[in-house]
């Protein structure tokens, strides 16, 4: 790991000023930054430790909304009683992510800022070509081992899968990220690679995430996050789905439904085609399975990851059916 200067910011203004400087990177929980610095991917000149800033870790959740400070720890949000009651998919996405130790370190703001990464991205010594690390250098994954790579939102520049879980639930429920001067939909905050794979977030120099806000809804209250993976715990998703469901008074007609996918796309992926196909329809298995297939429109595989195209609709359908059973 290349050495760096270390400075501790004790307020958000100092953090914003420092974040605008060339070569400066923010340190919150450190689980991504220290890891990527060790493997030679991140080479900050200056590390700005924001973890000691006070007043940024509050969790204020109710049926109306959840307002979560950027420095709240993943574990604390996952275990928060109101988040569990009113936003169960958010809690479930969090406790199924990483490990207990990492969730005690990682913050909500840092979670949104984690890099979209694949094994080639993490290994600059053996794979110099990576458009995320060096724009225009090429993609080592295309033509390589692609079992974990994305099938949605891919480009010729990059096929790395967005690895997070929380943001999938946030995208499903129209959450916003507060950057101080600007507020953005989380869905718009994440950028698909296109021709600029190195740019993963709509964030400008000097901007610092201060909070996320999730609007409450009936669909958020009746929601779940299902994560399918190669091993049962402490593993990235092969495919995951955050789903929320609101039924009409008859108990079987779908009034509102939210579907977002993880593990299959280059960014947290809202599956609006599935939602549109199911609104107003009866909650019946054949209809749900047929609509779930729409999530894969435009999918492009690279051989070894083709299974995701079959898997993801089944995960969506399982999540919807599970919510239907809990009526």
């Amino acid at each position, binding site marked *: *790991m*290349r*050495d*760096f*200067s*270390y*400075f*501790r*910011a*004790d307020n958000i*203004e*100092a953090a914003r*000023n*420092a974040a605008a*400087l060339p070569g400066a990177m923010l*340190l919150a929980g*450190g*689980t991504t930054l*220290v*890891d990527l*610095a*060790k*493997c030679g991917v991140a080479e900050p000149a*200056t*590390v*700005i*430790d924001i*973890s*000691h800033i006070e007043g940024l870790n509050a969790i204020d959740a109710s049926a109306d909304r959840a307002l979560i400070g950027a420095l709240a720890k993943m*574990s604390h949000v996952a*275990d928060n009683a109101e988040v569990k009651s009113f936003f169960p998919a958010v809690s479930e996405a969090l406790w199924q992510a*990483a*490990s*207990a*130790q*990492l969730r*005690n*370190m990682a913050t909500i703001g840092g979670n949104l800022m984690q890099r979209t990464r694949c094994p080639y991205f993490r290994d600059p010594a053996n794979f110099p070509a990576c458009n995320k690390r060096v724009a225009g250098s090429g993609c080592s994954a295309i033509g390589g081992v692609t079992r974990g790579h994305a099938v949605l939102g891919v480009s010729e520049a990059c096929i790395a899968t967005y690895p997070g879980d929380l943001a999938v639930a946030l995208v499903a429920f129209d959450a916003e990220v507060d950057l101080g001067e600007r507020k953005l939909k989380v869905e718009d905050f994440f950028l698909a690679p296109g021709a600029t794979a190195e740019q993963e977030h709509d964030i400008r120099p000097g901007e610092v995430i201060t909070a996320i806000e999730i609007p409450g809804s009936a669909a958020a209250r009746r929601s779940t996050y299902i994560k399918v993976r190669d091993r*049962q*715990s*402490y593993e990235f998703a092969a495919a995951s789905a955050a789903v929320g469901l609101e039924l009409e008074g008859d108990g079987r007609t779908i009034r509102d439904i939210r579907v977002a996918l993880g593990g299959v796309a280059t960014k947290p992926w809202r599956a609006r085609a599935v939602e549109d196909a199911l609104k107003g329809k009866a909650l019946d298995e054949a209809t749900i399975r047929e609509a779930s297939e729409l999530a894969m429109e435009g999918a492009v595989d690279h051989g070894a990851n083709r299974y995701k195209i079959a898997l993801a609709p089944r995960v969506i359908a399982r999540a919807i059916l599970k919510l239907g059973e809990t009526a």
Partner: protein
Amino acid sequence: MTSQTIIDPPEDGHFRNGIAANGSTPSPTTLSLHLTINGETHALDIEPRVTLLDALRERLHLTGTKKGCDQGQCGACTVHVDGERVLACLTLAAQVEGRSITTIEGLADEDGTLHAVQAAFLEQDAFQCGYCTPGQIMSAVACIREGHAGSDEEIREYMAGNLCRCGAYPNIVAAVRQAAQELRS
């Protein structure tokens, strides 16, 4: 944190490093830290990139905390910061100044009486080579305290961040279950 590492807003685009007590400008690549470990305060002069794990093992000779993967995947370096389990290999030493750090060396009573989790690991033979054991025990103590040891299934999920290459998992689960029952009663 000593004053030279706290920054003021860099209005002129440059950090204004503080001046050390003796009037000299400190090297930007060396930090003077005070870490509180197992109730004792230790003074350290280290590079900013030094992890808590390396500070514990190489500088303070507290080698109970183990280095396994050194990249956040195995849990052998689990310690407590302000009572919560974290990975020392992904924590910068500088970041935890002012926090209370507990390592495996600080778990037993001063008279040598083992913590209930340590005793349960012995009784249940919850290890073979023992290399992952300090991390397993630190993780288990926190797991029980968090209230995440209510069933074998929950113990497996919430202990998933600690790998055991010997495969002693059934006995580890048994030890955590036993300790959780003892600590509840």
